[in-house]
């Protein structure tokens, strides 16, 4: 590995989006609010795309257009990264408490 690009230790996991409309406004708000409670950098990625996006930005999460039935990938880096990933996965598994 080169030391030009510092290696970031990402913790990652994935869970299926159960909400019938996908990751629309209400779930996006819940997800970003939860992500913001962690110090770690938290990112998500739709199954159909390659780009990781900031899970603390409702605008970016909304534009991800992650659909119902597809897995949402979650990763975090930082002190509380494992807890952040676990919390977001748990929120997905609870279908955003809807």
């Amino acid at each position, binding site marked *: 590995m080169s030391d030009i690009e510092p290696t970031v230790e990402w913790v990652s996991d994935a869970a299926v989006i159960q909400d*019938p*409309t*996908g990751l*629309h*406004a*209400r779930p*996006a*708000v819940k997800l*970003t*609010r939860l992500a913001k409670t962690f110090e770690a950098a938290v990112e998500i990625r739709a199954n159909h795309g390659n780009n990781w996006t*900031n899970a*603390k*930005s*409702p*605008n*970016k999460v*909304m*534009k991800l*257009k992650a*659909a*119902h039935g597809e897995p949402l990938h979650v990763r975090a880096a930082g002190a509380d990264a494992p807890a952040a990933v676990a919390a977001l996965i748990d929120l997905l598994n609870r279908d955003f408490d809807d």
Partner: protein
Amino acid sequence: MTAPAQPQTQPQVYEGIAVSGGVALGPLHVLRGPGATARRAGDPVQEAAAFKAALNEAATALQALIEAEDSLAGDILEFQLALLEDDDITAPVLAAIAGGTPADRAWIDKMDAEIADYRGDGDGVLAGRAEDLSDLKNRVLSALTGSSAALAEVPAGAILVAEDLTPSLFLDIDWSRLAGAVTTGGSPTSHVAILARARGVSLVVGTRLAVEGLPAGGTAILDAAAGRLTVNPDSAARAAAEAAGAAEAEKERAIAAVLHQPARTADGIPVMVLANIDAPALLDQVSSDICDGVGLTRTEFLFAGGRQPDEEEQLAFYRRLLAWADGRPVTVRTLDAGGDKPLPGVTIDGETNPFLGVRGLRLSFARPEVFRCQLRALVRAAEEAGNLKVMLPMITAPWELDQARAMLDEEIAGLRQAGIPCAHPALGIMIEVPAAALMAGDFEADFYSIGSNDLIQYTAACARDNPAVAALADPRTPAVLELIRRVVAAGEARGVEVSLCGEMASSPALISSLLDCGLTMLSCAPAQIGPVKLAIADYDGRGRNGADHG
């Protein structure tokens, strides 16, 4: 304020488009829009402070609104609130301000770029949120220019006059203390119009009146049902408006009492009242608690502007619709384009008589790829919820139903082969062609739903869009009622449901005629559910001619 002693000036009448509401008398109050006040920009440090203060003010106002609103409106506002706290939005604005751009300009630039992004994406859910972004943009701008304070000055019972109203501003206003609103611009299909209908606020749009020419503090009559504003009314008109207003208030109380109850006639016959859904925004504005399901979903909006929604996009909407209905039955009509609803790239141009041409199911057969795509999305949705029904429009002969059913079966077989879960929905037909109404029993349909608008037009040979023949196109014309009775009888004989989903069911004055025909399932515009339930409660079938509630 002292009453003017001089003789009355001449009444001035302004005609606009009626959105919702009734008659009210009140003082005129002109509302200036955000940005109407010129704003002087400070240095970058002052501008950044002004921007942050505006964000805070907007957030506080949103927070207060969220606490006051029902959960549907609350969800819309929660998203706006979250965006206010989104660094992805605010950081670029602050950077532009630091570079010397005035706060309002920087905010407008960023939000306009985001709105264009949401709209241009081609995703229905995202495009729907563009309106929220636009609303948020105006909300922060109002805070920056200080125009939100203007609302506090509106006198009780006033008729608001504005060039236009944003959804934010609409929700900011305590309508219970006002008579209603008139806008010079605006459209009856806007988000604000939907909010006004859902909340029963008196609103007239598109009056094109010159706001500057209105007498400040003058009295006016807002006849929102007729789409008319009368400034400086004479004393006879005032008295009539006051009486009409009192009668309406009484009626509103009666409607509120029946709205959330299952409908029942005075002689105890239960009647199902369903909602017609013609825009996804309705799902955000109307609670499914007030209806017995969806009797008609007009899927044309999915194809608005010549868009060709793919299977996944359609499926996403059907899922949302089913989730909204919360287990109640949902009837989705397949694409009904043609006639008065041309669709670029789908309908056939240059027909000499489009109403008698390739429209509805006929067009679906001419464009099988569009039809099959919709069928796939529907049967996939049907697998997830057992309450979905599919309805075919503009059917004339039994073989059309057979052919459509064969296509449905083929799509189900194809999906199953591909391992994609799907299910057979109930497949019914819309009765709007007299040939189908006369011979309804010959159709092996799982249900019948009468489309009264076209049934009247085809029975009376009167074009829907030609006012010169409107007198002949009376919905209560005996031939139309006879056809409705025949369809009801055919449904009873075959043991299948019969409903009516055309405009007739949205007209409280016609409800008694429909119940006389033996109908017990009506699907109407969401705003008419209350008035229709009231008309049902007032109906007593005992001893009526032609009444048959077997």
